[in-house]
């Protein structure tokens, strides 16, 4: 009885592998296996600085951290107050401007989430995530 149960589990596990592998091939261009952010959506501090006046900095950290310090001219846009802050951001945004979103450090997720929502919900293109986040910018300022 136990061997029959194990056999059933193995059959189901193997069956699920087939479409799973197919999907991995289908989505290979849309997802990176190395980093949670595709390289085309990442930008370094040096690269972002070359965009000079053509960039809007977006601070995805919580309000307290933004209040403490932030990239000069950056707008606060975090998920806690998304509905309240998004209109303020959209009022400043104009087509052709690049958007660079940052959070605390290399390991934080907030910038990735905010960038994703800006692309998906606000239908913006040219939205990038700052590699290394606030820490990287702070070191190079």
């Amino acid at each position, binding site marked *: 009885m136990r061997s029959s*149960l194990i056999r059933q589990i193995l059959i189901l596990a193997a069956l699920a592998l087939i479409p799973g592998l197919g999907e991995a091939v289908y989505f290979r261009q849309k997802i990176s296996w190395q980093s949670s952010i595709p390289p085309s959506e990442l930008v370094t501090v040096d690269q972002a600085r070359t965009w000079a006046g053509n960039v809007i900095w977006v601070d995805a950290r919580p309000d307290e951290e933004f209040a403490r310090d932030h990239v000069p001219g950056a707008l606060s846009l975090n998920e806690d107050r998304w509905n309240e802050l998004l209109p303020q951001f959209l009022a400043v945004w104009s087509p052709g401007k690049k958007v660079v979103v940052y959070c605390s450090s290399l390991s934080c997720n907030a910038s990735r989430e905010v960038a994703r929502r800006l692309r998906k919900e606000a239908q913006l293109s040219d939205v990038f995530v700052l590699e290394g986040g606030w820490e990287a910018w702070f070191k190079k300022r």
Partner: protein
Amino acid sequence: MSKTPNAQLSTSNVQLSGNASTSNVKNRTSNILRRIVDLIVAGVFIYAGAIKALDPVQFASDIDNYKIFPWPISVALAFYLPWLEIFCGFALVGRLLYRGALSILMALVLMFTLVTIAAKVRGLDITCGCFGHASQNWSFPSHLATNLGILAALVVLWVSNRSPKPL
């Protein structure tokens, strides 16, 4: 006037057949109820799996938010787990590989519950990726209650289906 032996026999036969038909009705009712639970649980997993299979990028990101696995493992799980849920759901509907499907689903729900609790303990503010965007604003208690409810249904199905169906 006392009944003849034949009359007594026929009375006890009537009682026996009455008991048997009551027990048949009970069995049929419990089978129908079990089937309903089967289909509800299967529907939940097929729906949850399909939603995640349609957007594996988002699901990988949801898994990554738990900060348990490195990114490549999150991606692999995002491609694999939704299909495992879908296949197990269909196995419950078709009653094929039935106990295998129940075992996998119980293990998955247990794992989801444990990682949710672990995330809460570690102070991570995560969105539940269980049902895609539909579950994005779920609170921790509702997330936990859903998981425990599904787990309870799976345990009921496991216990009430003692005799395994052949492959």
